[in-house]
């Protein structure tokens, strides 16, 4: 009893301390959000104000209505050990709603409360499935459910296929992949650094960027055509360390959904994909500390209830520590002559979230993200700083009016910024860019009938760009260079979607998004129809099709197709019309042997107003940045995007394959206007992901990825450039012809992983995660360069250095790389 008392006291003290810290942090966040909201309110046109007033009036009028919907939440545990059961399914057959438990066994499910009580089914491999009747009246329900173990090593449990795959079979949604942080954590990772975005690269239809990076090229789109949302706030550069790691700390993330096509009307602003990343909310019941020590970074997460069962907090941080080592080395060598100091580099992420259950009908969540990379170098000639990072905050209020109406209101803020600074004695150089969003999103959901739903809403975002801001000169002001442009505009959208079950077999979703970009007296409008349908041929066979049009009003100016922190975001202007895409998708979904989901999709995408840099573009030394751009078209298609997926049992995973073509062209200043394959045009892309849970303690994982050769622009010819007196000749100058006519060798890689879980007598959990990246040690091509060899010969009795040979050299980035990470939770 005494121990329990001390534990409670400690937990209470921690909660109080964390609460105080977070109140201070979130007061600041709230203040900013309120300030943004006020400025938005005064800025937005009368339509928005009308909408906001209407929402408030509607909210007030419905507040008195009798609500008949309830939120079922709770926790699923092992009946013997009381350990939480993660990845279990919680299914309500009457409402056809499904939830999967998180790593703490937590779940939540919105139930339609037309019935006095409903049956909810709990399933977990290795456990007896359990049915519970839940009284779904006006009050939210919280359940503690324990499942009985089958008594021996985990066995296959036949789960009705419809439970897990019903959503896939019945929904009109096409081209959607979902991945949980739990899955990402189980898979082997480069240097042990779990990255949910890199795991997404294993899904069909997504071509990964260069080796080891987080680049995603979705269905022929470039990486800037992906809308990355963290709790609804746009993340403009979701990368650390030149794209080798994403900004998403898996400890703070719940799951990510990637829409490759069939976009719902409430998403817009990018052509090719939506990555909807959702943060975890803190545990409503218990205070916990978790984290991990890895090769390059460490993580720590604190979470727990602020008021048990109602309010919770979560804070999670990650930081690399290579700079601690390099600073020590530099310090030890500070007196060594001619020692070249090692530059400092680190990155960190900080996620924080608050969750409030204000009433049975009102939920408020506030989440915030702050991440930064910092590179610093000092020697006799340089005092150089380069930092970049994202900030994103969201406050989201969900309100349930009654069993037919609910609302969802978010205020979002996001900012991406990079700064470069160099100081010399008497002189300085500063450069940077910023893109900043402040906006609101309001939506109403109406369920007039079990077979019909309507969603409509409005998005308004004030967006500011500080592009290629540069200042340089002497401290006395005699010498001064400057450039940069500032843009500020508003992106507006109203959207509505109706989903209707027309017959027992046929469902149709009809949506329309009307978007606009208002900037400096110019206005660009776009009508974006969204149609998708499903037809059930058989209980386990469904045909699907969709058509979507997307508009993109913010453009990334990047030359190499790689994601660099210095890439510039630039707004639509009279010279840069919105990018437009039209995508058609058709496919089939099939569930077989009750465990396997098969999806086949074919798609065609046409893209207009594509942007490229002219050859030799210089975005920093020109006052007119648009003169460095050229506008063209593009298209991509795939007759075959396949996925076999198994979500339950001891062995889970998927196999994916995509056959696709991508082309860009009609750029007046690039490639003579001829069409060419962009760098990320890979004909074949295949992946195999397997997770095998051998026991409670041991789990084995493996991934295999194959991508046929990327397109590359290599020189076709060479010449000798003599140059002027005083400057040595260049014996080998490459001559580049048509773009991307060369193909790299195919890329393939096998990664293996083992997880060993431990549990202490006091109940603390920890595990060791072993990863072997590139297990076969294959030398995959990162890039190929051409390397001339030279000899000095006598010509007319004078020694002259002449080239004698040229070799093509392939650089690979990673050999077989083992890593181990220790994760803990108590």
């Amino acid at each position: 009893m005494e121990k329990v008392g001390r534990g409670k006291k400690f937990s209470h003290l921690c909660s109080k301390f964390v609460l105080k810290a977070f109140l201070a942090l979130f007061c600041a966040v709230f203040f900013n959000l309120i300030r943004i909201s006020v400025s938005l309110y005064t800025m937005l046109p009368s339509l928005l104000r009308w909408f906001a007033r209407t929402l408030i009036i509607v909210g007030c009028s419905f507040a008195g209505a009798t609500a008949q919907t309830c939120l079922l939440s709770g926790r699923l545990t092992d009946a013997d050990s009381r350990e939480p059961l993660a990845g279990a399914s919680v299914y309500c057959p009457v409402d056809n709603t499904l939830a999967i438990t998180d790593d703490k066994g937590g779940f939540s499910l919105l139930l339609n409360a037309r019935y006095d009580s409903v049956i909810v089914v709990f399933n977990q491999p290795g456990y007896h499935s359990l049915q519970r009747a839940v009284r779904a009246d006006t009050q939210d329900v919280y359940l503690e459910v324990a499942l009985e173990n089958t008594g021996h090593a985990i066995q296959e449990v036949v789960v009705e296929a419809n439970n897990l795959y019903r959503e896939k079979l019945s929904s009109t949604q096409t081209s959607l992949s979902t991945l949980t942080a739990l899955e990402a954590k189980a898979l082997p990772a480069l240097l042990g650094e779990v990255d949910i975005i890199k795991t997404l690269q294993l899904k069909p239809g997504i071509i990964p960027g260069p080796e080891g990076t987080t680049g995603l090229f979705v269905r022929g789109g470039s990486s800037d055509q992906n809308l990355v949302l963290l709790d609804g706030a746009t993340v403009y550069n979701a990368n650390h360390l030149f794209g080798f790691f994403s900004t998403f700390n898996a400890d703070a993330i719940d799951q990510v959904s990637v829409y490759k096509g069939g976009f719902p009307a409430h998403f817009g602003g990018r052509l090719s994909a939506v990555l909807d990343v959702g943060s975890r909310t803190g545990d409503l019941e218990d205070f916990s500390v978790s984290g991990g020590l890895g090769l390059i970074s460490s993580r720590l997460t604190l979470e727990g209830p602020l008021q048990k069962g109602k309010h919770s907090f979560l804070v999670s941080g990650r930081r690399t520590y290579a700079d601690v080592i390099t600073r020590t080395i530099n310090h030890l060598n500070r007196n060594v002559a001619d020692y070249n100091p090692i530059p400092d580099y680190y990155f960190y992420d900080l996620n924080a979230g608050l969750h409030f259950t204000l009433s049975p009908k009102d939920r408020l969540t506030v989440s915030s993200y702050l991440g930064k990379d910092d590179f610093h170098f000092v020697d006799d000639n340089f005092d150089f700083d380069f930092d970049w990072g994202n900030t994103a905050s969201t406050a989201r209020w969900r309100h349930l009016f009654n069993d037919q109406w609910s609302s969802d209101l978010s205020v979002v803020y996001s900012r991406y910024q990079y700064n470069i600074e160099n100081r010399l004695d008497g002189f300085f150089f500063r450069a940077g860019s910023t893109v900043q969003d402040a906006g609101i999103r309001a939506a109403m959901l109406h369920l007039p009938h079990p077979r019909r739903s309507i969603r409509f809403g409005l998005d308004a975002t004030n967006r500011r760009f500080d592009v290629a801001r540069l200042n340089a000169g002497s401290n006395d002001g005699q010498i001064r260079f400057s450039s940069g442009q500032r843009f500020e505009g508003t992106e507006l959208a109203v959207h509505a979607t109706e989903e209707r079950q027309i017959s027992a077999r046929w469902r149709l979703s009809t949506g329309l998004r009307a978007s606009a970009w208002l900037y400096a007296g110019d206005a660009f409008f776009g009508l974006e129809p969204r149609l998708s349908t499903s037809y059930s041929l058989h209980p386990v066979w469904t045909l699907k099709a969709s058509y979507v049009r997307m508009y993109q009003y913010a453009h990334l100016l990047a030359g190499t197709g790689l994601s660099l922190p210095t890439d510039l975001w630039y707004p639509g202007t009279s010279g840069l019309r919105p990018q437009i895409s039209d995508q058609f998708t058709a496919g089939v979904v099939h569930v077989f042997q009750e465990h396997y989901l098969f999806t086949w999709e074919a798609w065609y995408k046409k893209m207009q107003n594509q942007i490229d840099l002219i050859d030799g573009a210089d975005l920093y030394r020109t006052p007119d940045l648009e003169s460095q751009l050229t506008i063209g078209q593009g298209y991509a298609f795939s007759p075959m995007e396949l996925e076999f997926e198994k979500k339950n049992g001891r062995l889970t995973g998927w196999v994916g394959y995509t056959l696709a073509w991508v082309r860009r062209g009609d750029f007046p200043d690039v490639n003579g206007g001829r069409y060419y394959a962009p760098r990320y045009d890979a004909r074949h892309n295949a992946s195999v992901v397997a997770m095998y849970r051998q026991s409670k303690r041991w789990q084995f994982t493996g991934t295999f990825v194959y991508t046929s050769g990327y397109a590359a622009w290599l020189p076709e010819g060479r010449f000798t450039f003599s140059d002027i007196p005083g400057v040595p000749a260049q014996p080998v100058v490459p001559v580049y012809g048509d773009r991307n006519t060369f193909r790299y060798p195919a890329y393939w890689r096998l990664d293996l992983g083992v997880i060993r879980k431990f549990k202490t007598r006091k109940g603390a959990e920890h595990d060791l995660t072993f990863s072997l990246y590139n297990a076969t040690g294959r030398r995959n091509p990162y890039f190929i360069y051409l390397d001339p060899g030279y000899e000095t010969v006598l010509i007319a009795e004078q020694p002259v250095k002449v080239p004698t040979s040229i070799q093509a050299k392939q650089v690979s980035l990673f050999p077989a790389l083992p890593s181990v990470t220790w994760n803990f939770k108590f």
Partner: protein
Amino acid sequence: MRSTTGFVLLLMVTLAACDLSREVEIDLPEYTPQPVVECYLEPGQPFRLLLTRSFAFFDPFGLDTAFLENTLLQGAAVSIRYNGTSTMLTNTLSGAYANGKVYNYASPDTVPDTPGITFELDIVLPDGKQISGTTTMLPKVRWDSIVVQRNPDDTLVYRVLSYMTDDLATSNYYRRVMSINRTDTIPEQDFLVTDALNETGLFVFGTGYQLKFKYRVYNTLVHLPKEYHDFLESIQLALAGSENPFQQPSPIKSNVSGSANPIGIFTCLVYDLDSTTVR
């Protein structure tokens, strides 16, 4: 870009150490060799032109005299017209082999020192195909001053600051070349600048505190026509693009054209050279 290049160099060294760089055999697309023109009209110097040919990337190099024979494009008719006169450049080998400055067409006439004058180049190759180009001589821009400063924290090292004044009324392009102690090695600094972002008209180029007593610093300031600037920039990008995966390559931007499908540059070379001894 400098930081990116440094990162890439460090990366390549590290990868080589890990045996992650290896020779591979690749097939490049078919390439038809092109004539290459380099002609720098330097006031007071004879008219000289280098006419060579390009090669498919993996074509073998010739050694000794075969190298020049393979490279030089001989037997062309070359003429340059200016101010109503025309000078023929005969097919003669001249120049200094040691620093690589060889010309295979030359005229005894000297280039006039008249800013604003326009020159027109005509070349007819032995197969009848033609090359033409035009350039205009720019005025020389001189260094205002070269300042030597001693490091206040370490009196044994110095830096040199080179000042110049630009005419902001016109768009100007410059190439700054700085060498230490000798001019026949790779320069310490060699870069292109424009005045597009300059607000005061004053430029300064500097070294770090790296120079020692009695070092000799050669500062060259070349005033470039835009087409010469673009040509040099495209060469830099072509070189960088073949070595650096983060750098987009560029085709060569030439100011010569014609049925021979040439690449190259025909330009005036107007520069101010200063040599300063550190003391």
